[in-house]
């Protein structure tokens, strides 16, 4: 266990109130749209109404005549600078502005720049674009039909098939299935949804002609990586680019990719020599930026009569839309989807994924999950439930029989992952106890007799976060280490800068607590700064719950470097040898003589005023941390629902979430993360879908159709925890931000299916709306 510091120091384990909240709750945050620069002008995007159409002409004459319009950029203009296309983060390219044809509704066609945003929007209305409609491909299952149109004329391969990826032992798996007495399967769709962060995407590009320096204020989860990509793609020397991510109003993966609007704003600023602001509308965000999921999955389990699982076989079709704009490590075309064996001990497993193009917005990004683990966790937790139901074994008991046991760690999965640590049964038991499982089951039985519909759903998920070890993980070639720099000032206060970037996670508080834990400098004396590439050390940013496992670890390592130097200074001040010193939070003292001590503050002062001979002045350190492995948080969620037979409405009566993320930095922040992620999971399970009609019209392109949960829809969350530290992380933490989004959808769906299982219902695809439930009830004759 981690030694607990005093509340004054506020190291790990203290529920310190978030430092950043004092400005957020006063409306004093500084978001990209709050950036106002002298002479700033505004961009507005002209977008395609068609999902698939040939561009016949673009007439900008009328728009140009509108007073206040400064420039209109089209794909043809960009093509002259070789910028009409840009690389995506996954071996594909994407149109910045359309040339030739458009491939999805709301695709970027022209960029209007004007003196204010209203003129820009009006001018965009005046841009006349002539299209010739082409046949539309919406259904990914038809992508490789000979009758379907080939969408990507730019590719050499004349096919809508992007990739085939497989992992595991196909033969051993097939063999296990041949001899297995019991088989269970499910076809489940992890539907197209969208992170829909409260703040949409946007930027202010400011090219200074005198200094030739380009500053981009950007809604970026990965400012350094974006700087490098802007430099490589745009040919601008990297030292002349400064990316600043100010406060970010939620990212959830949506702010990892580079979007055409950013590139257009940069081009416009380079052309005009003026700062250019571009901020998306809500609908633009939902319709054109990184969506998540759209995985069409089949899972089969081979098992024996006792429900002991033998093998898992998974086949998945991934719909990436018009461009493969997935944001994930380059060695993993389907991200970490091969985590689909979950918390269970399978002897054999095989997983294959095919990616295809359709006439939909490009993606898919990892929405609050470590690269497709939400899909994987949802699938395994669904099919395990189906197996339990098939064998009439209680779903908790079936899970218990198949869990990887604590003494099996480090555990190598049949699909190639090595789990660091876990105690799955511990989390399950705690959740069962908290929810009063036996009592709930009894109640369910009684209710069924009365014809009432009540269900209990369990999800015992395993996450894999903290990408990642550089030997396995890189984004666009850049290894996924991360960094921290700590400078201790002469008065003993400190500033830290990281390569990550908070979007609401509370980094300004939690990183300070790590420093407090390691150095004994009170967390309130530590300032954390992120997001300015001119000042922060290089890093890959914040997503995939990686900040604590990477930059958090780097913070501890840098602090330990500082402590090592502090020890030398303390020995100098106390006139003893280093070996005679012992560390106690915040001070070094002479062994056996605790009164002879020097506090870290005294040592810091000496580092600038009384420097030992042969030692450099100052007290600071940088660390670039390359984790040896991912970390593997886990948990068990249990959901109890009641279903209204008349309306199909689902009420979540209880939801217990037991999470194990190893050692915790700030319990209150962890709890907040879990509340938020569960609320998103609820929305995915019951409310959200970016749908397309047969012509490729977006049917979830505004908050009228794409529903965001409010306090009204959100039930009371009951949280609990167990603690199984990561053995390889410097302070045993694992990362937690995404666990609730990964683990909860299956719990909700399992609960609904459980409520209806006696009617013969085996599966319902998300989002499970009242309409869907009502139709099931009608079909099953429960309502007329």
């Amino acid at each position: 266990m981690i030694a607990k510091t005093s509340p004054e120091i506020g190291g790990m384990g203290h529920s310190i109130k978030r430092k950043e909240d004092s400005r957020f709750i006063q409306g004093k945050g500084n978001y990209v749209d709050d950036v106002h620069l002298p002479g700033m002008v505004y961009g507005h995007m002209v977008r395609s109404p068609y999902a698939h159409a040939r561009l016949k002409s673009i007439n900008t004459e009328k728009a140009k005549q509108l007073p206040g319009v400064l420039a209109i950029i089209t794909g043809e203009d960009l093509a002259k600078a070789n910028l009409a296309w840009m690389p995506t983060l996954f071996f594909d390219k994407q149109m910045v502005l359309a040339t030739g044809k458009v491939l999805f509704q709301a695709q970027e066609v022209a960029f209007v720049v004007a003196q204010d945003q209203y003129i820009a929007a009006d001018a965009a209305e005046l841009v006349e674009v002539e299209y010739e409609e082409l046949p539309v491909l919406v259904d990914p299952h038809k992508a490789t039909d000979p009758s379907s149109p080939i969408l990507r004329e730019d590719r050499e391969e004349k096919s809508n098939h992007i990739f085939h990826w497989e992992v595991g032992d196909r033969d051993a798996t097939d063999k296990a299935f041949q001899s297995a007495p019991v088989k269970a399967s499910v076809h489940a769709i992890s539907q197209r949804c969208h992170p829909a962060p409260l703040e949409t995407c946007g930027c202010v590009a400011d090219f200074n002609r005198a200094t030739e320096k380009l500053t981009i204020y950007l809604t970026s989860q990965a400012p350094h990586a974006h700087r490098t990509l802007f430099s490589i793609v745009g040919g601008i020397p990297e030292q002349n680019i400064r990316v600043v991510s100010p406060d970010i109003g939620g990212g959830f993966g949506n702010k990892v990719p580079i979007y055409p609007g950013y590139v257009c704003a940069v081009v416009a600023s380079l052309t005009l020599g003026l700062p250019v602001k571009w901020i998306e509308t809500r609908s633009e965000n939902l319709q054109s930026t990184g969506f998540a999921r759209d995985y069409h999955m089949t899972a089969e389990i081979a098992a024996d009569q006792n429900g002991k699982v033998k093998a898992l076989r998974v086949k998945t079709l991934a719909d990436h839309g018009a461009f493969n704009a997935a944001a994930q490590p380059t060695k993993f075309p389907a991200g970490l989807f091969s985590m689909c064996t979950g918390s269970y001990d399978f002897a054999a497993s095989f997983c294959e994924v095919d990616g295809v193009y359709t006439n939909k917005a490009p993606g898919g990004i990892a929405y609050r999950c470590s690269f497709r683990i939400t899909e994987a966790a949802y699938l395994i937790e669904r099919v395990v439930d189906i197996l339990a139901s098939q064998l009439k074994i209680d779903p908790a008991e079936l899970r218990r029989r198949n869990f990887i046991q604590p003494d099996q760690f480090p555990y190598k999965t049949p699909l190639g992952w090595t789990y660091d640590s876990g105690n799955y049964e511990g989390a399950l038991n705690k959740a069962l106890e908290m929810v009063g499982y036996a009592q709930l089951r009894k109640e369910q039985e009684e209710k069924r007799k009365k014809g009432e519909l009540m269900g209990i759903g369990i999800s015992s998920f395993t996450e894999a976060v903290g990408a990642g070890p550089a030997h396995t993980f890189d984004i666009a070639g850049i290894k996924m280490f991360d960094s921290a720099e700590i400078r201790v000032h002469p008065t003993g206060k400190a500033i830290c800068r990281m390569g990550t970037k908070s979007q609401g996670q509370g980094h300004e508080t939690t990183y300070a607590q790590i420093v407090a834990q390691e150095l004994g400098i009170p967390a309130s004396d530590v300032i954390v700064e992120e997001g300015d590439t001119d000042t922060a050390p290089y890093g890959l940013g914040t997503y995939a719950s990686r900040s604590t496992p990477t930059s958090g670890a780097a913070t501890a390592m840098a602090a330990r470097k500082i402590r090592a130097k502090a020890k030398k200074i303390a020995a100098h001040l106390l006139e003893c040898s280093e070996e005679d010193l012992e560390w106690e939070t915040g001070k070094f003292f002479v062994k056996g003589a605790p009164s002879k001590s020097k506090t870290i503050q005294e040592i810091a002062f000496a580092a600038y005023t009384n420097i030992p001979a042969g030692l450099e002045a100052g007290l600071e350190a940088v660390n670039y941390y390359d984790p040896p492995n991912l970390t593997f948080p886990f948990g068990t969620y249990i959901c109890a629902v009641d279903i209204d037979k008349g309306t199909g409405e689902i009420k979540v009566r209880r939801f217990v979430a037991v999470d194990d993320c190893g050692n915790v930095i700030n319990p209150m922040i962890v709890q907040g993360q879990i509340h938020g992620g569960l609320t998103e999971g609820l929305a995915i399970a019951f409310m959200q879908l970016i749908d397309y009609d047969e012509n490729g019209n977006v049917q979830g392109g505004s908050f009228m159709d794409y529903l965001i949960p409010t306090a009204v829809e959100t039930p009371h969350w009951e949280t609990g925890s167990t603690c199984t530290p990561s053995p390889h992380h410097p302070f045993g933490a694992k990362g937690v931000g995404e666990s609730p989004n990964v683990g909860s959808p299956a719990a909700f769906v399992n609960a609904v299916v459980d409520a209806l299982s006696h009617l013969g219902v085996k599966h319902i695809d998300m989002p499970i709306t009242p309409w869907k439930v009502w139709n099931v009830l009608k079909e099953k004759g429960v309502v007329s």
Partner: protein
Amino acid sequence: MALKIEKSFQVKEPVEKVWSFLSDPRKVALCVPGAQITAQVDDKNYKGAISVKVGPSVTDYKGEVQIVRMDALNYEIEILGKGQDVRGRGSASMKMTGKLRMLEDGGTEVTSISELNVVGILAQMGSRVISEVSNIMFGEFTKNLQTRLSQPDQPSEAATDPAGKPINAGSLAWQAAKGVFRRES
């Protein structure tokens, strides 16, 4: 987005009179809010335009109207209309099958089945709004038709007809919104 709308209504005029009106696209256009026939290509093909304004979104479709089938014996007509917005905001097509039935009281029952297909900005508003907009437009159409049928014959070239103007923007959006909420509440 595809929508199928079935409507029927009754008028007091005899079936022959209604047929002579409904079988002439130029006359029909006069009753459709925001629509006009701009040219006749031949006896079956016309060019036309329709302006639909929903809330802040105006769509000006220009395109062709074709009489696919005309069965004067059974009083059945099938019309296909296709158009693209002049500013490239989307397209729409509609196949309408109209059928007349003589009523015992000497009046006529008009039944129409319209299959509407909308692509673009308008289609994003979802079927709830589009079907309400269609309902409102159809209501206006019926009213206009009844008015025109009860009036003495007018030359159909009266292209300056007030019905040729787009229907009121604000009220259409408001009525559609009311329709949506009324149905769901």
